[in-house]
C-alpha cells in the first residue's frame, strides 16, 4: 500500500519536474527570442517597449547564467509567482489563471462525470443485445472520430447562430458582471449548456466502446461461466460483469485525461468560454510567454492531481486492489 503510493507519487513528482523543465526550457531553446516577437507589437511605442524589455529581461533573468535562471524559475513556482501577464498587464499570471479556473472546472467536471456514467451504461447495453450493439457501437466509433471543435461548431451553429435557441458565445451575457444573483446564475447556466453538451457528447463514445469490450471480456471469464453452469439468470451474470468492468474503467479515466484537456481547450475556444483553455489559447496567439507557461503548468498540475485522486479511488473501490494492498477486510 505505502509502497504503491510512494511509487505513484514519485512518478508524478518526476513528471512534474520534467514538465516544469520543459516549460522553462522551451522558450530558451527555441530559435529566436520569444520576447522580441512579443515586443514587436510595441513598435509604435518605443518607450513602452524599452520599459517592457528591461522588465522582462529581469523577470526572465536573461542576464543571469542558465542555472540561475532555472533556480529562479523553481523559486517562482514554489511561491506561486509565475510572472506577470503581458496581455493582461500588470495582473500577475497566477491571478489571471485564478479568475478563469472556475469556468473550466464548472464545465469539465460535470461533463466527465456525466459522460462516464452515461457512456458506461450505453456500453453495457450494447454488450447485452445485438440490436443495440449494431447501433450504439458504430455511433460510438463515429463520435470518437469527431474532432471536438467541429462538433462544438455544429452545436453553436445550429442551436445558436441559426435557430437562436441558446447563446453560443461567452460564459455569461456581455455587460453583466459575475455576482451571486439568480439572474446571473440563470444567465450563466444558459451559456453553460452548449459547451457542456458538446464536451459531454464527445466523451461518450470512448466510454461506451470501452465498457462494451470490457463486459464482453468479463462475460467470457470463469466466474461468469460457472454462474451460467449453475443456471443463474443472465441478469445476475450481467450485474457481476458490469460491476467488475466498471472498476477498470476508472483507470481508463486516468488515461483519458489527456484527451479531455484537448477537448476542453478547443471547446472553450469555439464557445469563447473564458476558462483556462481559452486563456491558454489567447496567451499563445498573443505570445504572452508567462501566461503560456502558467497555463501549461496548471494543466500539468491538474492532470497529476486528477491521476492521483483516481489512483486512490481505484484502490479503495476495487476489492481486488484494496485487499491485496491493505490485506484488511474493507
Amino acid at each position, binding site marked *: 500500500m505505502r509502497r504503491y503510493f510512494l511509487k505513484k507519487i514519485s512518478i508524478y513528482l518526476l513528471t512534474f519536474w520534467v514538465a516544469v523543465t520543459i516549460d522553462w526550457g522551451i522558450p530558451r531553446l527555441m530559435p529566436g527570442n520569444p520576447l522580441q516577437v512579443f515586443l514587436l507589437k510595441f513598435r509604435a511605442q518605443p518607450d513602452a517597449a524599452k520599459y517592457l524589455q528591461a522588465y522582462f529581461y529581469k523577470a526572465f533573468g536573461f542576464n543571469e547564467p542558465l542555472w540561475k535562471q532555472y533556480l529562479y524559475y523553481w523559486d517562482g513556482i514554489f511561491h506561486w509567482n509565475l510572472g506577470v501577464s503581458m496581455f493582461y498587464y500588470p495582473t500577475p499570471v497566477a491571478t489571471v489563471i485564478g479568475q478563469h479556473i472556475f469556468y473550466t472546472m464548472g464545465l469539465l467536471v460535470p461533463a466527465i462525470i456525466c459522460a462516464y456514467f452515461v457512456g458506461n451504461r450505453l456500453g453495457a447495453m450494447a454488450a447485452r443485445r445485438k440490436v443495440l450493439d449494431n447501433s450504439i457501437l458504430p455511433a460510438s466509433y463515429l463520435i470518437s472520430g469527431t474532432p471536438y471543435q467541429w462538433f462544438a461548431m455544429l452545436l453553436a451553429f445550429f442551436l445558436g447562430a441559426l435557430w437562436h435557441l441558446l447563446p453560443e458565445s461567452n460564459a455569461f451575457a456581455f455587460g453583466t458582471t459575475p455576482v451571486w444573483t439568480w439572474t446571473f446564475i440563470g444567465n450563466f447556466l444558459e451559456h453553460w449548456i452548449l459547451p457542456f453538451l458538446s464536451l459531454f457528447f464527445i466523451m461518450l463514445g470512448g466510454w461506451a466502446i470501452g465498457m462494451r469490450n470490457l463486459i464482453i471480456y468479463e462475460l467470457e471469464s470463469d466466474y461468469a461461466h460457472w454462474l451460467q453452469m449453475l443456471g443463474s*439468470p443472465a441478469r445476475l451474470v450481467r450485474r457481476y460483469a458490469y460491476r467488475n468492468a466498471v472498476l477498470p474503467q476508472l483507470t481508463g479515466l486516468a488515461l483519458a485525461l489527456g484527451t479531455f484537456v484537448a477537448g476542453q481547450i478547443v471547446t472553450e475556444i469555439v464557445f469563447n468560454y473564458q476558462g483556462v483553455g481559452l486563456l491558454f489559447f489567447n496567451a499563445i496567439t498573443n505570445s504572452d510567454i508567462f501566461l503560456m507557461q502558467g497555463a501549461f503548468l496548471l494543466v500539468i498540475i491538474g492532470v497529476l492531481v486528477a491521476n492521483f485522486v483516481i489512483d486512490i479511488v481505484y484502490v479503495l473501490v476495487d476489492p481486488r486492489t484494496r485487499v491485496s494492498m491493505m490485506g484488511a477486510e474493507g
Partner: protein
Amino acid sequence: MSLRVEGLKIYYRTLYGDVKAVDDVSFTVDDGEIMGIAGESGCGKSTLGNGIMRLDGRMRKVGGTVELDGVELPIGDDRAMDRLRYKELSIIPQYAMSALNPTRRIRTITRDLLKTKKVRYSAEIEEFRRRLDLVGLDEKVLRQYPIELSGGMKQRIVMVISTLLNPSLLIADEITSALDVSTQRAVGEMIIEFRDRGYVKSVMVITHDLSILAQISTTILVMYAGKLAEKASADTIINAPLHPYTQLLISSLPEVGVRYEDRVLSGIVGTPPSLLDPPEGCRFHDRCPFAFERCHEEPPFDEVAPGHFVACWLRSKSSVSADAAAAAPVADGGEG
C-alpha cells in the same frame, strides 16, 4: 438408477463442419456410483460432462436422451435446464480456482447463487458452515474476497457451494489437474465423503489422471474419439481391461501418477482420428494392433460380463472370432 444416457450425440459447429465430439453414447450411472471418465485429450469426455450440464454456443445436441432420476433432461433448452441446474445436477468446473467472482465476498456470491434458486441464504447458512468445516475451512472465509484465499481454498469453497443443494448428479471436471499429489488425494477423499454423506447421489469424474480414478471411482468409462470404448468397475479396467485401447492406455502408464496427456502413448501408433470426419466402423481400428475385417463395421457397446461393457468385435458376444480372440494378449479371465 441415477443417470441414464441413451444415444447421446453432441457436435461442435466449426468452420470446417461438425466436430462429432460425443457420438452416439449410451451408459448409466447408478446411485452412489462415482464414475470416472478417461480418455486422451480430445476424446470428447469433457464435452460429455459439460454438455450434460450446459451446451455452450458452439455445442449442439444432435440426438439422444439424458434421464436423471427417471426424468428426461431438456438438454438444448437452456431456460428449462436452468431450473434443474444446481438443484438437480451440478458441476465443479475445471477452473474452480478462478470460478469465484473476484470482487464479491464468498457469502455474497453464495447468497446471490442461492437466491437464483429461491433458497434463502439464512436457511442454508448453518449447513454451509458445517460443510466448510468438513473441508477444513474456517467460517471467516465467508467474509473474505477470493483474492485473500489460496487456490486450494477456493477450490474447496467451489466444491461446497456447488453441492450445497444436494444435487443428484455432480460433474467434477479435471478437478485435480492443477494440484500436487497430496492435495489430489485430499480432494479425492472429499468427493467420496460428499457421496457417503449423501450430499451428492452420484458423481461423474472427468480426468486425465488415471491414478485419481483408481483411488476414488467405483467405475471407469473409457472414451475414444467421441465413442465409448469400455465401461467396467475401476478394478476391472485397471487390472483386466478388454478393449485393446484400454489395454494400451493402461500399459502405457508405467507408474501411477503420470498423466497420459503429458506423454506420447508409446504403445499406440498414430494419432486419434479427426472428429470432423471420423473413420467408418471402429474408430480405433487404424491404430489397433488386432484390427481385422470386421472392424470396418461399428462395434456395439455390449455387456460382456455383468457391469462390463466393451465396444470391440474381439469381445462382442454376437460374433467372437476365435482366432482373433486368441491373438489378444490379455486373457479373458474365463468370463467370456
